[in-house]
């Protein structure tokens, strides 16, 4: 981190006034230099202030476990885009243009992100866009054809629109248009926290309920100075890893189903349900709703249930390991997985991919390891990586991670500390403060940034789901691939539509 940035740990608050407010040129240099020195942009957004628009960037230095903050003011309706020098901010800048009607000049592909109206009346950069109605990149030629998929899909999945430029089976280019799931969460959070806030967090991306609520809870605890009891920390860790187990297992089963390999598909589909049921044992909801709350967790785990829970976990893990293990010993499956949907490691760095997809490119980034939070400050889970960036690597990273997670949960269940599980969150939030809270959801890095106003209400609450970083990765993975490999490739990322669309 260089001198222009204010550095803080994960979920460590700072007075907003301490965050350097630099001129636009200095802001540009600060972000670009940080990224050149192996930092990543974890969040980059705008907010309204009296004399215009303020840009806020949060950078992560993974090796030093530091988060860097910097901000700048835009007084006109335009600013110089960072994207040409720093491609990983491309979607953040499109989002800023859409939300506040200011133009990042020089952005190579400035299009709406969620087809939402501008938050600033009278400042519309894209007018009043309709979902999916926009220009798409087109390849022209006699034998080039375009295939449009979605927004309504054949399977029971979320809506998204995919445009392929193909030559026969060969894909030249894929462009993805999302926004169909936009619910206006970030806007609704301004002025909070209110009774509704926690429910927005739980449903920001429904399959990452624990990940998002945990990030939110950490932010609130940081801004109120609440200390979370040890037992609650451990239970949160258990819930987060159960979420990872369920989703990784489900993904391995779905990948296997996509290549029509039935033995693993059927069995993984079943054990995914077992893991969800274990989460239900914790809090009554298979998806972890109502479990994590600021100050701790809502439900304690009675001692007499621990033994059965451990037993069921071990049975489910044994089944998962056995059935998903077939994937690595069946030649026809390996042949389909390997060299399909490859993302090069340098592409992964350039576009700022995170989570499983980045670890499959050999990048050892994991919030649990790099920015330890909660129980992960005391218990370390090894970071699992693979090195080819293809479907096989992404599947293999999941397979390795789920085994580490199962070990973690089994160990933590044996050594639950005897403390209360919830502390009262005292008073209101610190006024005029900023905090960035990171967690490692099963897809990857979840980042919540809260900025409070003079009364201690949210002046801005920015949610960055890992999908926001990774969707471009899906598009690039398909380049020069086969169009028939798209479903497999897409499933190997398994990104969230609603987490992106918010």
């Amino acid at each position, binding site marked *: 981190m260089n001198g222009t940035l204010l550095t803080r740990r994960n979920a460590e608050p700072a007075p907003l006034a301490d965050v350097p407010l630099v001129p636009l040129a200095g802001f540009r240099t600060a972000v670009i230099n940080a990224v050149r020195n192996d930092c990543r942009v974890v969040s980059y957004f705008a907010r309204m202030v009296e004399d215009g628009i303020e840009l806020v960037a949060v950078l992560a230095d993974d090796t030093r476990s530091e988060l860097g903050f910097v901000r700048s003011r835009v007084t006109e309706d335009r600013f110089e885009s960072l994207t040409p020098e720093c491609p990983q901010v491309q979607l953040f800048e499109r989002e800023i243009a859409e939300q506040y009607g200011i133009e990042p000049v020089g952005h190579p592909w400035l299009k709406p992100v969620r087809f939402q109206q501008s938050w600033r009346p009278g400042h519309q950069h894209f007018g009043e866009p309709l979902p999916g109605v926009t220009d798409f990149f087109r390849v022209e030629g006699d034998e080039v054809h*375009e*295939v449009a998929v979605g927004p309504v899909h054949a*399977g029971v999945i979320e809506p998204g629109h995919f445009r392929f430029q193909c030559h026969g089976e060969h894909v030249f280019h894929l462009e993805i248009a999302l926004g169909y799931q936009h619910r206006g969460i970030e806007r609704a959070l301004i002025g909070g926290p209110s009774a509704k806030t926690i429910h927005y967090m739980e449903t920001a991306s429904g399959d990452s309920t624990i990940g998002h609520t945990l990030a939110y809870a950490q932010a609130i605890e940081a801004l109120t100075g609440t200390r979370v009891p040890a037992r609650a920390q451990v239970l949160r860790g258990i819930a987060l890893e159960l979420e990872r187990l369920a989703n990784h297992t489900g993904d391995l089963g779905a990948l296997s189903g996509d290549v*029509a390999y*039935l033995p693993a598909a059927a*069995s993984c589909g079943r054990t995914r349900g077992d893991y969800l049921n274990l989460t239900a044992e914790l809090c009554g909801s298979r998806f972890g709703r109502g479990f994590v709350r600021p100050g701790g967790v809502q439900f304690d785990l009675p001692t007499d249930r621990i033994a059965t829970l451990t037993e069921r976990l071990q049975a489910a893990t044994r089944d998962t390991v056995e059935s998903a293990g077939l994937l690595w010993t069946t030649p*026809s*499956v390996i*042949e389909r997985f390997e060299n399909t949907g490859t993302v090069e490691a340098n592409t992964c760095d350039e576009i700022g991919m995170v989570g499983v997809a980045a670890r499959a490119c050999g990048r050892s980034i994991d919030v649990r390891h790099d920015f330890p939070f909660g129980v992960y400050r005391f218990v370390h889970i090894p970071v699992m990586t693979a090195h080819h960036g293809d479907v096989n690597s992404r599947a293999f990273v999941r397979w390795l991670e789920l085994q580490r997670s199962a070990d973690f949960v089994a160990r933590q269940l044996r050594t639950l500390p005897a403390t209360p599980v919830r502390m009262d969150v005292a008073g209101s939030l610190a006024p005029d403060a900023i905090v960035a809270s990171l967690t490692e959801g099963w897809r990857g890095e979840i980042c919540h940034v809260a900025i409070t106003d003079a009364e201690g209400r949210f002046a801005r609450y920015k949610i960055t789901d890992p999908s926001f970083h990774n969707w471009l990765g899906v598009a690039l993975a398909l380049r020069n691939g086969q169009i028939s*490999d798209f479903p497999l490739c897409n499933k190997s990322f398994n990104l969230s539509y609603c987490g992106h669309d918010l």
Partner: protein
Amino acid sequence: MTAVLQLLLVVLTAPLLLGVITRTKAIVAGRSGPPLLQAYYDLGKLLRKDTVLSSTTTWVFLAGPAMAVVVPLLASLLLPLAGPRAPLAFTGDLILFVYLFALSRFFTTVAALDTGSAFEGMGVAREVTFAALAEPALFFGLLALARISGSLSLSQLLTVDGNSWHRASAALVLIIASWFIVLLAENSRVPFDDPNTHLELTMIHEVMVLDHSGPAFGLILYGSALKLFVFSALIADVALPRTGNPLADAAATLGAVLGICVVIGLVESSMARLRLVRVPQLLVAASLVAGFAVVLVLR
């Protein structure tokens, strides 16, 4: 009499084949699976539904499903399934047999193109490419059988007796192996296609019938069951000795066809489907295997 018996056999038992494959897969995966007769229930359900027709389609769109049923029925009449002679038999009927399926493919693909959908166009391109590659395997096999039996009519050509097995067992085994691969490809089974997938972009055959609904789609499902029956019966004819008793032969055919379905179920339970670019390689391999059978009988 045998013609009626044979038609009844094909018409009534074809949907059962799909049930046997599904049940085999379910048992291997440790599930209980849908009832054996599920395909009949599905057909009953589809026939009671209304058809939705896209405003861009013409009569061609409905000709596809009609041909999908008529063609396999006609083709089945060329095979000796019950008794020593097929209901329809003449010299050179093997050519008709192969090109009847080409005719139905023509109508299926034209019906798919009629919708103007990018998906269906893609499916058509795949279907005709792979069909062109599967055809040589079928013909090489028929050529070898013609040489063994000294006849150009399917009725004699497929009545492989103990003597032929004694003289040309290697060639016959190669033909059966090659035709089994063709059967998997022609009937969109794993490893060529995935009959259960909902992913349009990976489909070969299924994607061409996405716009069909109700009774028209029911006809397509029924047609594909008939086609599976005919191809399985073709292999069964080569593999089975014949008694000459229509009832016994019909029972033997049915048993062998169901056995082939169990094998299909086992194949689908034990391997993933091929990457699309590898499909031509396996089809060419099937042609080479059948071609080698020809070399063996020509010595």
